[in-house]
């Protein structure tokens, strides 16, 4: 069982939605773990085995009720003086995209072997024309492991319908079957004003809307400082608040169902 959250841009709220999913599954007694192939960040969490992983995955692990593990985020991209350097489980590595991708798959398989549900998070937008063919964290992952996917769009900046539609449209037709739905994040106000737009988007894309997440000033550790497990645990308070705020507006059970749970 697996599910992938893809973003319409970086910062669209994938990390939060994935953490909600992890938390919800764990509460419902499902053994669950997070996964993200690669993270671009200058800060990290150090796992028990001494490797750095993305803060988002550490937090999601804590939300899943398990200890963070290197396989949850095998590749870290760090901006350094000479440009972005790729780290594989803590060591700089100058391997090809394909070689890196096999490492990513191996990590994913190990996680999938240990847990019933793997909640994956994509990286940035899956349809960057300038990264085409080099992107190992989004659709390549989805295709290779047949992961049902949900697009997360951020409404705060406006243009969320266009962003979700455009993301769907730019994903090659043969891959669109993995796109099962979308979620609208950071909404303020009366949800009913969105309904006409949601219905139209559902009917033109065939994806279903799994819900609208209210705007939350979430103190989930952001990916800009190094973070310990303790502070991740503190972040759970606001995550639980958000989960209960979403009880009526987000169909988490529906998302569990498409994951194959």
């Amino acid at each position, binding site marked *: 069982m697996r599910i992938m959250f893809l973003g319409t841009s970086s910062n669209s709220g994938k990390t939060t939605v994935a953490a909600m999913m992890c938390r919800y599954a764990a509460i419902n007694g499902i053994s669950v773990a997070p996964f993200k192939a690669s993270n671009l960040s200058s800060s990290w969490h150090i796992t028990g085995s001494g490797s750095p992983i993305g803060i988002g995955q550490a937090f999601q692990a804590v939300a899943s009720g398990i200890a963070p593990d290197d396989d949850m985020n095998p590749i870290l991209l760090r901006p350094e003086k000479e440009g972005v350097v790729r780290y594989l489980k803590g060591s700089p590595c100058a391997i090809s995209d394909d070689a890196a991708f096999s490492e990513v798959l191996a990590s994913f398989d190990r996680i999938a072997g240990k847990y019933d549900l793997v909640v994956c998070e994509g990286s*940035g*937008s899956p349809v960057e024309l*300038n990264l085409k063919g080099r992107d190992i964290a989004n659709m390549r992952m989805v295709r290779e492991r047949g992961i049902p996917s949900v697009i997360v769009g951020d409404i705060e900046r406006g243009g969320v*319908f*266009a962003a979700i*539609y455009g993301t769907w449209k730019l994903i090659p037709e043969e891959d669109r079957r993995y796109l099962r739905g979308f979620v609208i994040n950071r909404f303020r106000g009366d949800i009913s*004003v969105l309904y006409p737009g*949601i219905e139209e988007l559902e009917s033109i894309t065939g994806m279903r809307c799994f819900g609208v997440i209210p705007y939350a000033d979430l103190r989930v550790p952001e990916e800009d400082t190094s973070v310990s497990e303790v502070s991740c645990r503190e972040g759970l308070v606001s995550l639980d608040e958000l989960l209960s705020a979403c009880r009526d507006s987000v169909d988490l059970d529906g998302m569990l169902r498409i994951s194959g749970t």
Partner: protein
Amino acid sequence: MKPVWSRVSKEIEGELAGTNTSCPYHPSHFRNQECTFCYCPFYPCEDPDLGEVAESPRLGRIWDCTHCNFIHRKDVASYVHGRLRASGISGPGDPALEELFRETKTKFHRKGKAVMILGATSDAGKSVIATAICRILNDRGYSVTPFKSQNMSLNSRVTHKGHEISMIQDLQARAAGVSRPSFRINPILMKPKGDGMSQVVLEGVPAGDYSSADYYSEFVPGPGTDALKRSIDFLQSRYDFVVMEGAGSPAEINIYDSDIANMRAAKAADADCILVVNVEWGGSYAYAVGTLDLLHPEDRRRVKAIILNNLRGNVSGMRAAAEELEEMTGVPVMGIVPHLDFDLPKEDSESFRGVKSVGKGRTVVAVPKFPRISNFTDLDPLLHEDVTLRFVSSPEEMEGAAAVVLPGTKSTTSDLEWLRRTGIAGRILSLKGEVPIMGICGGYQMMGRILRDPFGTEGEPGDTEGLGLFDMETEWPGSGKKTERFGGTYIPTGDPISGYEIHSGMSSSSETPMIKTRTGTEGSIREDDMLFGTYVHGIFDKPGFRRHFLSKAGCALSVEIVDHDDHVENNIDKLAHGVMEAVDAELFDRIFMEGRL
């Protein structure tokens, strides 16, 4: 012969004047205008496409040419000059003069070209691009006006005629070189009051409070739509170019038909559109494709170009992707604009939200971060000196502050309550006499003894105790609002002060006044305690008072004395230059100049 015609006769005898920048009234209408006819030979033409009837307090009904640019066009002036020289027209009343006016109008007058800048998101950079385009076109000698039908903002400005418009359209008007912008450049201004309500300012005057639902169901179909059409007609018949700005995304399919800020405005003006996409957060291709695809086909046809904006990285890395985007959408990419370094007042209280401080100077000026803070661009000029503006939400954060400025607010009484609840009020009182404390507008009202709001204009009806720094009372009379440009001198030093007032509460103070105007005084001051209070927004724009205030805070003043207006002017040029460098000049000309001389 009327006295004015004697001037016109001189103008006819003289040579073409060109742009007379040495005239104290320059530019009377727009930057780079033609000044041959300072006095219009056709006055009063009584043509509603050009001028308008106005009430003057002194003269009664007059023919008002404030927003007419016709006779200041180079082609028009030169044609009229030549014809008048040759014709021997005797003056007003000569049928040949009327004939010449009709002929000139038929030959030269046409609707201005409208181009609308759309954004894929609210932070796409539409207003920045529109500002740049206003300046680029005005640099070429055209009369240009900005326009945004509906703007949601707590930063506003006052026009020469006392109408309230958004700060950003006022800034764009400056970029366009318009000397006296009309309220028509922003006929609808929504000022959020919290609690889901907004005060709607219609054609420069308050028109009541609306919830978002009522705004769309009642206001938009009626007064909103009418104002939109009136404004567009007015501007298009007076300016060579109308640079329109959309709001948010034009592809919000849940409210598409009731959105008068985007495609309906474009349609009303028959505008070509340019879609701006911010590439900073990624996903820009999806945003571009999605926006275009969700537009109705007749609207999509208006989109003539895409601008990829705010790139922090290598342009060449994006070229191939931009080409692919062109192929996919059929819309050319006009340019990849890098992240530009310029300093202009910003609209986005959005980005303001997370900001704790601005500037890197040694003198810390503490500014309470009111939940309803407004007109915070008042503070920008302080940064020309050795200053850090620190936005504080707790008394602890005021540690080390060398001065305090209480800015404007949309809701004085509830923000005053916030000031007390956070403990900042107490800390401010303890700083009295130690550091200079200044209140502007709502912040000034808070400094008084009592605030009386019997009709609940600001919140719950009733009285609120003020900070008591000034012996002053403020009362909200329940209706009316003062919106006025302001000019005067700071009494202790004689330094000039200019700006504008926007407030509905009225104060009576028994303190020493701070500013002298032509007709009276304004503000309050206690020099010994270093307390300053005024209603004037823009108080720090001129260097004299700004430096006086900061010297009281022990700020080491810079050698270079910066006038804020010059600073803004230079940065508009910098921005326009940066944008023009990044766009395809040929495509720019094809969109803007087609059919132009």
